C-alpha cells in the first residue's frame, strides 16, 4: 500500500481495499453463545441498547414496584410498625405491575424476532433448536426476578436500618428468605407463561394483548368465583378455597399459603386443598414450558 502515485488531494476519501482476512482468533462454544444471547435478551427486556421509548415501561414498572418498600421504610422511621410483608408484598400492586411488565416486555424478547423472520439466522448458527427459547426464558426470568426481588431487598434494608440488635436483624432475615422464594416462584411461572403466549404471535400488539387478557381475565375470574362462592353463605368453604385455581396469581398465592406463608392474601386459606395449588402450579408451568418448546421445535427455518 506504499505505492501511492496520484496527488494526495485526489486520493482523500478512497478506502483502500486491504483484502479479505480470515479470522484466526478463538471461537466460543455453544454455552458461551447461549450466554451471549441471554445477556442480549436481558438488556432488551429493560430496553437497554434500544431507544428511549423502549425504556419507559420497564423503568416505570420498576419504580412503582419499589414505592411500597420506600413508604414502609418512611413509616417505620416515623415509629410505625412494618406494614408490608415479605411474602405477599403488596399483592394487588404486584399483580398489576407484573401483568403490565410481562405483557409489554415478553413480546420484546420473542415477537420481534418472529416478526422480522430472524430465527433462521439463529438456527443456522451453532445453536440447537431449544437453545434459543432457553436463552430467552433465562433472560426473562432474570428480568422478572429483578422486578420482584429488588423491592424486597429494599424493604429489608429499610427494616434492618432501623431495628437494633442481632436478634431483630435475624428475624427480618428469616422473614425475607421465604419472600425471596415466593418471588422466585412468581418469576418462574409468569416468565414462562408470558414467553409462551408471546411466542405465538409475531405481532407485538397481539402478543401483548393476549398476555394482558389472559392474566387479567383469569385474575378477575378468580375474584368473581370467590365472591360467588362466598355469598352462598359458605364463608371460606370449599368453593371459595378452590376459586383461586383458575389464575396464575391466585395459584401462586395458594402455593405460598400451602407452603406455610402466614400473611393474609387474596384467597381464604386453602387448607387441605393446598396441595392442589402446588399441583396446579406445576401443571401451569409444564404447559407453558411445553408450549414454548413445541413452538420453537416446530418454528420453520423459512
Amino acid at each position: 500500500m506504499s505505492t501511492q502515485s496520484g496527488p494526495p488531494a485526489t486520493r482523500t476519501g478512497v478506502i483502500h481495499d486491504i483484502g479479505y482476512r480470515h479470522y484466526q482468533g478463538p471461537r466460543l462454544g455453544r454455552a458461551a453463545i447461549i450466554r451471549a444471547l441471554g445477556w442480549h435478551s436481558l438488556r432488551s427486556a429493560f430496553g437497554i441498547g434500544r431507544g428511549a421509548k423502549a425504556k419507559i415501561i420497564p423503568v416505570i414498572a420498576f419504580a412503582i414496584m419499589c414505592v411500597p418498600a420506600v413508604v414502609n421504610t418512611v413509616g417505620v422511621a416515623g415509629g410505625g410498625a412494618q406494614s408490608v410483608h415479605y411474602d405477599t408484598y403488596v399483592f394487588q400492586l404486584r399483580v398489576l405491575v407484573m401483568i403490565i411488565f410481562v405483557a409489554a416486555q415478553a413480546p420484546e424478547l420473542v415477537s420481534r424476532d418472529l416478526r422480522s423472520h430472524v430465527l433462521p439466522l439463529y438456527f443456522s448458527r451453532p445453536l440447537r433448536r431449544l437453545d434459543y427459547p432457553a436463552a430467552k426464558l433465562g433472560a426473562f426470568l432474570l428480568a422478572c426476578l429483578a422486578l420482584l426481588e429488588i423491592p424486597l431487598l429494599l424493604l429489608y434494608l429499610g427494616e434492618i436500618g432501623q431495628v437494633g440488635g442481632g436478634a431483630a436483624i435475624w428475624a427480618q432475615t428469616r422473614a425475607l428468605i421465604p419472600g425471596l422464594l415466593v418471588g422466585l416462584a412468581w418469576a418462574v411461572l409468569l416468565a414462562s407463561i408470558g414467553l409462551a403466549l408471546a411466542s405465538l404471535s409475531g405481532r407485538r400488539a397481539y402478543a401483548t394483548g393476549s398476555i394482558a387478557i389472559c392474566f387479567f381475565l383469569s385474575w378477575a375470574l378468580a375474584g368473581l368465583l370467590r365472591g360467588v362462592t362466598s355469598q352462598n353463605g359458605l364463608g371460606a368453604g370449599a368453593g371459595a378455597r378452590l376459586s383461586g385455581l383458575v389464575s396464575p396469581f391466585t395459584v401462586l398465592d395458594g402455593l405460598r399459603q400451602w407452603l406455610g406463608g402466614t400473611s393474609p392474601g387474596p384467597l381464604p386459606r386453602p387448607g387441605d386443598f393446598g396441595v392442589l395449588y402446588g399441583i396446579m402450579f406445576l401443571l401451569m408451568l409444564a404447559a407453558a414450558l411445553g408450549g414454548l418448546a413445541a413452538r420453537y421445535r416446530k418454528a420453520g427455518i423459512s
Partner: protein
Amino acid sequence: MTALDQLTVRVGPGITGLVGANGAGKSTLIKILLGLLTPTSGRAAVLGLNSDRDGERIRAGCGYMPEHDCLPPDVTATEFVTHLGRMSGLPPTAAKERAAESLRHVGLYEERYRQIGTYSTGMKQRVKLAQALVGDPQLLLLDEPTIGLDPAGRAAMLDLVSRIGAEFGISILVSSHLLGEIEQICDHLLAIDGGRLLRSDSMASFTQVSQVLLVEVDEGTALLEAELAARGLRPWRDERALLVQIGSGETYDLVRDAVADLDLPLNRLEQRRRRVEELFRDGADQEDRVEQEGEA
C-alpha cells in the same frame, strides 16, 4: 410431502450453482445440508461432517443467507451483524471488528450506522450476505441472493459472490431459478427439478447444452423440421419456431442451407440460451441427444 427424492450428488470446492424452478427443492437441500432438516432417508456430508449428527459443527463452519427477508427494521446494520457475529461464536471485540469488515466487503460503508428499515432492497441483500460472512465461514450457502433485485443490483450481487468465491477462498453454493444468471459465476452447476437431480456438471459442459438456435419461418415449419432431421439435426418445436441444439459451427450452416434449399420465408434466426425450465422439461430427452451427438 416429498421435496427431495433420490438425490445423489457430490460437490467440490469453488462456486457451485444450484438451479431449479420454484419449488424444485433448492431451499430444502440447503436446509438439509445445514442439518436443519433431517432427511427421511439417506445422508448428507458437509465439510466432511455428517449433517445428521454434526449439525452444530457444520453450522459453525457455514454461513447461510436465506431467500426471504430476515432483517429487523429497527436496528442498525452494524448492531445486527455484530450480534449475529456473537451468535456465530465470536468474542465481543472480534464480533465488532468482523461485522465492520464484512459490511465493508459487501459494500456498505457509512450506511451501516443507519437503521435497516431505511435500506433499499439491494442494501438489505448485502446485509444478509454480510451476516453470513461475519463468522468467516469455510462454506457459504446462498439461497437466491439476487431475488428482488433490479438488473444492476443483480449484476453487482453476482460480482460480489464471484469475488468472495475467487478472492476470499470461501466455497459457495448459490441457488437461483435463473440459469442465465448464475452460470456466469459458477464453476459447477447442479440442476434439480421436482426434487430429483437433472444434471450435475462442470459449467463448460452445461453451457454447451444450453446453447440452442431458434429458427422461425413464416410457413412450412413442418417441411423444415423434416429437412433438418434429414440433415442430421434433431429439431424440436417451440410454439411457432423450431429449436436446434448447437453442436458446432456447422449447425448454423446446416440450418441456413436447409432454409435456402426449401426456399422458405425465414422470419427469425437467433442464437438462444435455453431457459432453465426448458432444460427441465426435456432434460432426459436432452441428455439422450447429447450422448448421441457425442457418438456421432
